[in-house]
């Protein structure tokens, strides 16, 4: 099981003003706000923590099918250099990749290295981006499993949780896109 999330930094800066009153308080715990305040680049830290929460949520709902909006309750905690996100009894490990253009977070139940594969889009049309991501993921699975892409079916559950079905198998996957960038993991 995996959950991932990507933030296009330029788009996040354009679309959101994290400095507006009460914004941070709605999304981040006191400790997280303290961490943001003390960080070198506050904007980057805001979006890093945000993408970690999103990735952890996507993993959580695979384990516990449901749908809700509770970013503040998914708390990012750093142990030495290892990031975890905790939500109630649930806890997961995060791997993070940051460049000047984007931040990708990947959540798994165990410590891991990032496996999310990046996709750079030619246009910002959301529907075509979703399709491109699904096709790329399908191609990857077809290679690994030595099956035709035609036999792989993409589905979303009532809770909007994605899954790839082939033969009698069901594979947990995670897809994310934002602005010019996308990523998938399985």
């Amino acid at each position, binding site marked *: 099981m995996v959950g991932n999330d990507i933030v296009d930094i330029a788009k*996040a800066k354009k*679309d*959101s003003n994290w400095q*507006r*009153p*009460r*914004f941070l308080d*709605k*999304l981040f715990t006191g400790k997280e706000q303290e961490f943001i305040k003390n960080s070198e680049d506050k904007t980057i830290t805001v979006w890093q923590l*945000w993408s970690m929460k*999103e990735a952890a949520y996507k993993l959580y709902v695979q384990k516990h099918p449901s*749908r*809700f*909006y*509770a*970013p*503040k*309750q998914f708390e990012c905690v750093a142990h030495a250099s290892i990031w975890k996100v905790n939500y109630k009894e649930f806890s997961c490990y995060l791997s993070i990749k940051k460049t000047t253009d984007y931040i990708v977070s990947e959540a798994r139940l165990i410590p891991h290295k990032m496996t999310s594969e990046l996709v750079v889009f030619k246009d910002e049309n*959301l529907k075509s981006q979703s399709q491109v991501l699904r096709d790329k993921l399908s191609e990857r699975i077809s290679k690994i499993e030595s099956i035709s892409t035609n036999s792989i079916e993409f589905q979303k559950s009532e809770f*909007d949780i994605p899954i790839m079905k082939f033969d009698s198998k069901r594979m947990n996957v995670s897809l994310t896109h*934002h602005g010019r960038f996308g990523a998938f993991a399985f």
Partner: protein
Amino acid sequence: MTKDELIEKLKGIIAPYIQDEAAFANLNEDTDFVKDLKINSANLVDIILDIEDEFDIRLENEDMEKMLDVKSAMAIVNAKLEA
């Protein structure tokens, strides 16, 4: 405030964040902010803050959890206004 007035107010609040014009044109109580309007989840918090400002109310964590569609937003605003 009537149901239609509330939907109109919410429409005005949501408008800047939508990424699917067709779904927005057909907006009704069942419209989902993320699935239908393709609103970025980071902007859901802006909608919540805008609702707080517009109606002069404050939403708690429990309210935020359900803020995924027009129907829930209406129910939450109504409950707060009656409180």
